[in-house]
């Protein structure tokens, strides 16, 4: 009954999105206010219907209604409640419903808070959103109905994939989707602006918060996924350049570029058509990510159970959505009036350089991800592209990007003073040089890691110097500095935090890839071994019982008295084994232990890692997310303010 209610709500929602995608468009073209306002109501009704459907799905999962195929395949009566609920989106069909729900939430948000937007623009944005929603509704209803029944109903379910039974993964997909779908809002704004034929700073004021929100969520989602693979897969790594990881990373790169170019549109009214193009590409890449993940065309460690017909449908959506938008762009972009001029050496120039480098980086990732597919189609054999490719392409592009990221904030708008900026950056240059030499001295002659640490010091120090200059630290009285610090806009703090986070992240990435130590050996209870100067003893291996699994739990003790208890779990229902790594972090390095198979007589296969600065990777990502959130809270970006100013503008007009 609940499932049927959910399906019914979904079908109604699909019909509403059809209306939302057409009526306001016609209304905007014919200047009929009632037809345009219809979009607002449609967006709200859409949200109510999709929320009802999603609620129904969660309800059948919570009550373990195994007559619903999805529940039977992804849940079990023994699953803890968190994973029963997470099971609702831990699969293809449910995650699509989550996608549509987030889309509906954003649509309703535009409808509620977008009163300051010109009526035609708002109607068109909501219409484009309706059309995106229609595409996904059609996808869901034709190929992936989440409410399909199973007859006869099994007595119990097949349980959520044990690897996914983890808090990190319960929240990873919703975060990632917030990001993907947030980019759809930027896309809708871009397409609506193309239909309108005009882009002004007010448009950018609207696009920027959405992009920022999407970027923040995407950052958090990718970091959560990476963190999960670090401790759950037990491979000791946190990034594998896997196609599915790349699929989320490419939109992130483009969203980062979009974030920076939208600033230029807002502040200087320049780079308009480029920003529009970026918004289209960013959403296109997130659609392509969906296609890659769902269609199974690429081999990946993630490998969703996939279905070619689904892939075809997403490919069709991609072609219509992105192809259509690009055609529209080709027709309308030349008519967009160019804005403020600027010299190559200027804030705009630095931001444009950022955009060029980020796009090139995304292009190399794109090439590496899709090359095996092209080669396979061309009959060139089956190949895989691994980390060495990305190390020799992606990483070199990041070097000038980081150099520029530190210098950019020191340049003025329109015309910058490079020599002056360089003089103000002497402290950062010194820090970079010291970090470089220190690395070479401490860790031996290896130029790559030394450059990495130098860049991290350069960016981190430059960011702090920039902040210190803004508050006149040590140049004015302490009280004056404090007053200035308090009055600094939150967006400025957001940028500083995000750049600082990037510096910390680079240090973590560099150190953990260069100086990771690994030991694989067989140990019996009582054996000791040594890694990175620490003696570690396996005290015992004991069976333990969880809510839906049994496990062998090892107990390691280091000489400093730290305990590590990794587990090797066997889940009862699916009979799968998962590895739960034990990680002991002191903020500077992680000690990481995994227990493999074995027995008391012959000993156990044990894998130990010493991972320097891995905690900094998570800290860096956290700083970036905090920077994004802080920036979102900026007064200028608050949706109420643009409404007021825009209303004032229309009143004046």
């Amino acid at each position, binding site marked *: 009954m609940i499932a049927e209610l959910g399906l019914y709500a979904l079908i109604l929602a699909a019909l509403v999105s059809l209306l939302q995608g057409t009526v306001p468009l016609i209304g905007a073209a014919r200047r009929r206010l009632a037809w345009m306002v219809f979009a607002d109501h449609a967006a709200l009704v859409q949200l109510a219907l999709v929320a009802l459907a999603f609620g129904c799905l969660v309800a059948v999962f919570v009550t373990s209604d195994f007559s619903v195929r999805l529940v039977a395949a992804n849940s079990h009566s023994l699953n803890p409640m968190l994973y029963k609920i997470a099971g609702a989106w831990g699969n293809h069909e449910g995650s699509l419903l989550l996608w549509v729900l987030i889309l509906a939430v954003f649509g309703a948000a535009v409808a509620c808070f977008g009163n300051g937007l010109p009526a035609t623009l708002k109607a068109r944005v909501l219409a484009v959103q309706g059309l995106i929603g229609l595409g996904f509704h059609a996808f869901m209803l034709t190929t992936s109905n989440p409410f399909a029944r199973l007859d006869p109903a099994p007595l119990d379910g097949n349980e959520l*994939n044990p*690897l996914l039974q983890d808090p990190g993964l319960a929240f990873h997909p919703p975060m990632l989707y917030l990001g993907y779908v947030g980019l759809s809002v930027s896309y809708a704004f871009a397409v609506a602006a193309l239909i309108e034929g005009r882009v002004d700073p007010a448009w950018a004021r609207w696009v920027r918060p959405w992009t920022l929100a999407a970027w923040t969520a995407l950052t958090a989602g990718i970091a959560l996924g990476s963190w999960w693979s670090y401790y759950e897969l*037990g491979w000791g790594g946190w990034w594998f350049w896997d196609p599915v990881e790349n699929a989320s990373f490419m939109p992130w790169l483009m969203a980062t570029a979009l974030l920076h170019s939208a600033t230029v549109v807002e502040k200087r009214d320049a780079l308009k058509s480029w920003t529009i193009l970026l918004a289209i590409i960013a959403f296109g890449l997130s659609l392509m990510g969906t296609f890659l993940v769902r269609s*199974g065309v690429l*081999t990946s*460690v*993630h*490998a*969703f*159970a996939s279905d070619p017909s689904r892939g075809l449908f997403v490919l069709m959506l991609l072609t219509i959505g992105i192809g259509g938008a690009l055609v529209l762009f080709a027709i309308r972009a030349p008519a967009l009036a*160019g804005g403020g*001029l600027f010299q*190559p050496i200027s804030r705009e120039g630095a931001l*444009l*350089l950022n955009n*060029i*480098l980020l*796009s*090139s*980086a995304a*292009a*190399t990732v794109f*090439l*590496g991800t899709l*090359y095996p597919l092209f080669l396979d189609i061309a009959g060139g*054999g*089956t*190949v*895989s*592209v*691994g980390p*060495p*490719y990305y190390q*020799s*392409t992606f990483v*070199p*592009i990041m070097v000038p990007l980081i150099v520029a990221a530190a210098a950019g904030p020191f340049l003025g708008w329109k015309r910058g003073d490079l020599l002056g900026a360089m003089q103000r950056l002497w402290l950062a240059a010194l820090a970079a040089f010291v970090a470089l030499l220190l690395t070479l001295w401490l860790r031996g002659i290896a130029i790559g890691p030394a450059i990495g640490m130098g860049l991290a010091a350069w960016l981190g120090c430059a960011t702090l110097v920039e902040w210190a200059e803004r508050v006149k630290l040590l140049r004015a009285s302490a009280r004056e500095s404090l007053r200035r610090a308090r009055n600094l806009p939150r967006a400025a703090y957001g940028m500083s935090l995000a750049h600082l986070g990037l510096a910390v992240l680079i240090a973590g990435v560099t150190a953990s890839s260069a100086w990771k130590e690994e030991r*694989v*050996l*067989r140990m019996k209870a009582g054996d000791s071994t040594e890694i990175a100067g620490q003696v570690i003893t396996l005290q015992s291996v004991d069976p333990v019982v969880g809510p839906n699994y049994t496990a062998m739990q090892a107990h390691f003790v280091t000489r400093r008295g730290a305990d590590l208890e990794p587990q090797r779990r066997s889940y009862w229902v*699916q009979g*799968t*084994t*998962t*590895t739960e790594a034990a990680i002991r972090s002191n903020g500077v390095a992680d000690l990481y232990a*995994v227990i*493999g*198979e074995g027995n008391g007589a*012959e000993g156990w*296969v*044990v*894998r130990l890692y010493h991972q320097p600065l891995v905690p900094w990777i998570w800290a860096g990502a956290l700083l970036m997310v905090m920077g994004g959130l802080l920036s979102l809270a900026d007064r200028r970006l608050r949706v109420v303010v643009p409404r007021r100013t825009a209303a004032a503008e229309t009143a004046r007009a």
Partner: protein
Amino acid sequence: MSRKRRRLLWLGAALFALGSASALGLSALNDTLVFFYSPSEMETKHLQPGQIVRIGGLVEKGSLATSAEGQVSFRVTDLRRTIPVIYRGVLPDLFREGQGVVAQGSLGGDGVFTATQVLAKHDEKYMPPEVAAALKKSGRWQEGAEAAQ
């Protein structure tokens, strides 16, 4: 500088960046591509010693053995040809005899494949597409499906 010239300058810079990125990418692809072969194909390809490749097939039943030092050995088969593999390390959680596996490493002069990486998939119902293709090529796809049960 006129608007047009400035735009041309930026366009040039963008093209240069994109061009060098793709040149970098394509040359790196040449050096870092890892080819995938089935055990049957391995026989016909005369690989240079030490060349990194991926092999894939089913883990032959009853072939898995572990030595005292934690070295694992097993055989990968496409049900026509079989290659012995040795690997130091913890096998992935979904590694099973009779199921699909992909191993990356190099073939030694003695015909033993030394793996540096062993991949099995998150989802145990899932067959790596390369393995399925390799089994189809060797004409044993049906039997392969049974063997995997």
